[in-house]
């Protein structure tokens, strides 16, 4: 029975095995489906880490094309920019009501040595992603990391999951999103997760500081043309953690910065750091209501805005870490939990991979 929900934002769910055990996609679909009424059928998606172990050193590009011309143009560009080791259609199951999908194709890419004279490999890949998204009409990079991928589209998340045959993939981190789009039309590229390199973001809420987050990122060469506030989160993590080499907790301190009144009471060294981060990175503060789950190769981060305007529940069971908009979405897939808690505002829940493979 499908009923349109009320405008309650979106649903997010994430699960990870800190031991690196790989779990097939049916479990996460079950969890996100439990929150069906938080989305409206105009967007659903998943990020999965550890799905291409045999090609883990290659950049796996999941592409969406509006038409054959954009596919050809992109492939022409890839041929020049990368060594294309393999390309193939992304397998889909076409009989469950998902309509008008774009052309979905994936590529396993390596960066030729000669491209890296003046630029690091990941900066190079980041720039090519921006270029494809901005300059090639009708082409969109759904994901571009190693040993990971994003599977998303217009539909309810459980239908999107079946469409992409996620039961055939095994991952040590899964994140999922059910979308209730408000600001941007329901287009395939606009579904969550948003990704860059191995960063992925699923997001419930709205970034009211988007305007300045965007202008700040543009100073560092990011191009924000996806008409959604969520992409800034992925890029800000990329900027802070990868390029400015911030520890995760420091990045969190910039993005969901403590209030001045709390900073004023910190121990001197901690206070000095917090003040400097706010002074220098004020434009990165994610303001407005949000709960997000960030995925990356080595872990998963859950975060709320600093006055907790969107919900988030976290839980643990053995080596598993769970996060979701609602506790019921966790109980659905793990009825008996060792621990369940509501993370405090602006305080991250961090899952870290103990041992890859």
């Amino acid at each position, binding site marked *: 029975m499908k009923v349109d929900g009320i405008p309650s934002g979106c649903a997010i769910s994430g699960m990870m095995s800190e031991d690196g055990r790989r779990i097939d996609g049916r479990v996460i679909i079950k969890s996100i489906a439990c929150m069906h009424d938080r989305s409206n059928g105009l967007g659903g998606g998943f990020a999965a880490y550890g799905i291409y172990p045999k090609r883990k050193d290659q950049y796996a590009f999941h592409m969406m094309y509006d038409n054959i011309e954009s596919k050809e143009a992109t492939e022409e560009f890839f041929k020049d920019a990368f060594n294309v080791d393999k390309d193939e259609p992304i397998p889909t199951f076409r009989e469950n009501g998902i309509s008008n999908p774009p052309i979905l194709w994936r590529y396993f890419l390596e960066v030729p040595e000669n491209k890296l004279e003046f630029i690091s490999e990941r900066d190079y890949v980041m720039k090519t992603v921006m270029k494809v998204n901005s300059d090639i009409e009708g082409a969109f990079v759904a994901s571009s990391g190693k040993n990971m991928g994003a599977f998303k589209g217009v539909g309810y998340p459980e239908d999107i999951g079946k469409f992409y045959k996620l039961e055939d993939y095994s991952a040590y981190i899964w994140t999922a999103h059910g979308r209730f789009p408000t600001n941007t039309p329901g287009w395939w590229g606009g579904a969550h997760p948003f990704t860059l390199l191995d960063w992925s973001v699923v997001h419930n809420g709205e970034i009211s500081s988007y305007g300045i987050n965007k202008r700040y990122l543009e100073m560092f060469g990011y191009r924000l043309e996806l008409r959604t506030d969520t992409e800034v989160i992925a890029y800000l993590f990329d900027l802070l953690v990868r390029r400015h080499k911030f520890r995760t907790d420091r990045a969190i301190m910039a993005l969901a910065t403590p209030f001045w009144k709390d900073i004023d009471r910190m121990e001197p060294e901690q206070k000095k750091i917090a003040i400097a981060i706010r002074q220098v990175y004020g434009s990165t503060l994610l303001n407005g209501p949000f709960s997000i789950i960030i995925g990356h190769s080595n872990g998963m981060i859950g975060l709320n805005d600093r006055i907790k305007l969107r919900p988030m529940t976290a839980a643990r069971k053995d080596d598993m870490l769970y996060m979701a908009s*609602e506790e*019921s979405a966790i109980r659905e897939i793990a009825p008996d939990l060792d621990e369940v808690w509501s993370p405090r505002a602006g305080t991250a829940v961090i899952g870290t991979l103990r041992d890859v493979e």
Partner: protein
Amino acid sequence: MRIDAKGIHYRPLNKIIRIAAASGEKEFELDNVGGQRYIGTGLNDSIKITINGTPGNDLGAFMNGPKIIVNANAQDGIANTMNAGEIIVHGSVGDIIGYGMRGGKLYIKGDAGYRVGIHMKEYKKQVPIIIAGGTAGDFFGEYMAGGIMILLGLNGKSPLVGDYVGTGMHGGVIYIRGKVDPYHLGKEVSCLELGEEDMKLLGSYLKEYCEHFGFDFNEVVGGKFTKLVPLSHRPYGNLYVY
């Protein structure tokens, strides 16, 4: 009436309850509840609903009479704008519970999330009450306009309560079992010692509360309480110029 809620969407589930209640059914027991919203919402009958499993958001919203017992944790938005009735949660609850609550009781065994009892209010004989046995997040009693909120901290977790306690409070009373650093208080509340009347009031509600959850009444009521009341019924009277 016993219903296995496994896999049932909230609309048929709540419809079953509505119809049965209208035809005189007094007791419901729901098994395998997993995130179904609006259970008990808008019901006026004096019925009892026992929930096994995690109910979804807006449990008992606009509720006007029923008694709900939850044998698990519950989520966000419980007792939203509730008018009368009783909700007893044998676990912890999420954010924004008791929003605009005007009457009835909400008893929570464990912790409560952010923004508990926002704009809770009383009207004539209706005095809403929320008691949580554990801790609570920021903005506890924000804009509180009436009613009673009691936070017990029985599980010894820290912090007992978050920041901005009673910010914008302009009616009602909050009792917290333990000390609250003034730093955590909103600008609009003052901290008072408890008098005899307060102890009498606490005693009557806590007795009932302890019976529900099997806590030792004497131990609970024997703790040192802090009483918070608003400084003014018009906290922003001087903010504007005409």
